[in-house]
């Protein structure tokens, strides 16, 4: 038997480890937050100013209004002129939102319908179509980049939301189907059978009995689809050309790979861009983890 002292020591060690990992996770965010309130001159010093005093809102002001800072020396007015692209952040975020929300809605609607059929119904072609949908996900994105471009061009959809939505649907459906069909299979079938006996159609049963029970799974599936679409880069880079449809990752990659970028402005962009997914991750944490658990605890 180990003594109380040893146990207390062990708890302290484990708590310290937890704290260490938490710091590793949070530190990059914290540094970006600090940078976003700093002037360029404070960041391009060796070592950098770790606590900008006083913190400035000039970076955010410029992104939202285009107003130049009152203290040009602190903000390095020259790099601001070479960072004009950050003014497109808001339209890019709007594009990202429209695309991601559409993808999310379509995933919940069509994904739930199809997943329910795969989970509960027996029909010829069920096994092979299910396998086909899942295996399609193994294809590396780069492998089909050119054909995707060709398809989108043929439908005359280059530089539109619709192109991105279609492509992201093809990417997200497999996971949604897999995830939801596993989830549905674990719901008690008796209730659904009772509803069917009472004269409900399959669709009505799905709507009135299954959906309320599966709400956590549906929320998780929706969040996954939203994040996938919001975060995708390669095809957004390929299929959009102007700010009419360019999404946030494309714009930020362009800003960041510009060698004369203002790091303070870039940091402010990063902070603004991660607010939506970070909020989702914090608010829906339970649903997300519970959803993941349900999908693998066979």
């Amino acid at each position, binding site marked *: 038997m180990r003594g109380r002292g040893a146990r207390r020591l062990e708890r302290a060690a484990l708590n310290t480890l937890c704290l260490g990992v938490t710091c590793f996770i949070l530190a990059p965010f914290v540094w970006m937050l600090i940078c976003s309130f700093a002037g360029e001159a404070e960041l391009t010093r060796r070592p950098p100013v770790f606590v900008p005093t006083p913190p400035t809102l000039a970076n955010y002001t410029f992104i939202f209004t285009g107003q130049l800072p009152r203290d040009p020396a602190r903000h390095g007015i020259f790099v601001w002129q070479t960072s004009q692209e950050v003014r497109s952040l808001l339209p890019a975020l709007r594009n990202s939102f429209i695309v991601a929300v559409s993808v999310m809605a379509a995933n919940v609607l069509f994904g739930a319908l199809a997943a329910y059929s795969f989970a509960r119904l027996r029909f010829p072609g069920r096994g092979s179509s299910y396998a086909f949908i899942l295996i399609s996900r193994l294809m590396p994105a780069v492998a089909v980049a050119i054909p995707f471009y060709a*398809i989108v061009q043929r439908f005359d959809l280059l530089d539109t939301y619709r192109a991105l939505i279609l492509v992201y649907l093809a990417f997200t459906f497999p996971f949604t189907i897999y995830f939801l069909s596993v989830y549905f299979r674990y719901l008690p079938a008796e209730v659904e059978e009772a509803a069917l006996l009472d004269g409900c159609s399959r669709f009505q049963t799905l709507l009135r009995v299954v959906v309320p029970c599966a709400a956590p799974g549906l929320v998780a599936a929706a969040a996954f689809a939203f994040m996938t679409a919001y975060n995708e880069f390669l095809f957004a880079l390929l299929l959009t050309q102007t700010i009419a449809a360019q999404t946030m990752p494309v714009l*930020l990659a362009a800003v960041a790979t510009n060698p004369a970028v203002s790091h303070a402005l870039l940091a402010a962009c990063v902070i603004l861009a991660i607010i939506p997914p970070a909020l989702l991750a914090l608010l829906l944490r339970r649903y997300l983890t519970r959803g993941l658990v349900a999908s693998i605890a066979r």
Partner: protein
Amino acid sequence: MTRERCYPYATVLPVLVVVALFTVYPLLYSVHLSVHENVLTRPHDHDFVGLQNFREVVTGYYFWRSLWSTATFAVMAVAAVALYGLGTALLLNQALLGSALLNVVVLLPWAIPTVISGIIWRWIFDGDYGVLNGLLLVTGVVNRYVPWMSQTFTARLCMVVAHVWKQGPLAAVFLVAALQVIPPALYDAAHIDGAGRWKAFRFVTLPYLKPTLGLVLIYETIVAIATFDLVYVMTGGGPADATAIIGWYAYTEIFRFLNLGHGAALALILGVMLLGLVMVYLRAFRSEDAA
């Protein structure tokens, strides 16, 4: 009755059509591209060249270099993600204040775009003004700034750190889920049988984790090999092609050198490689289950 029979098809079809449109046709098209000459700077020559594109790609100097870079990155990244994920999962599974705290923030890196995690880490590791250099200088670990991103080995390491930070949480969440379904009675039994901490982990925890661990390894290998966003924003393949892993190489063949034939051939090789790896993993984990 017919309505009842049509219902499953009506629900499955929309999904199937979208997925098929972006799977079957693109794959055929890729195969077609790969066996024809297709260089955008010579738009009028589209001769059938058989396997010449594959031959040229495979015998090229850059192919083997990029394979080597891919292998080094993938091995380091997958091992690091698995270890970090497992460690974090074990921490999360404790009844501690620290675990509760960790639980709140753990999903954050996973939720944000890879492009952004690349931007953040590149700025942290920056050789001229990076905060890592600043902190090391202030604490006296180094006496002048180290160009982390301009040396082969450290540049690879930087990418692995960024990758682990972003990918580790998902692995951790999966593994925590698997940890939580282990019946506590098994640990009691192991304790009664005189097993210590390590033995309980080795003979109770690990066997239970194996299917999930397999899943994590497969998934992370695919993600690591197909990494593209991170290379794009962090290193651009440099320094000296040290981080030009195969996904990036295929991209440059297509969009920098405009050789669609080479690009398609490379991409197909990449696809077959991934498929092969998945098969190997599945076989390994299934046969051990049977034994």
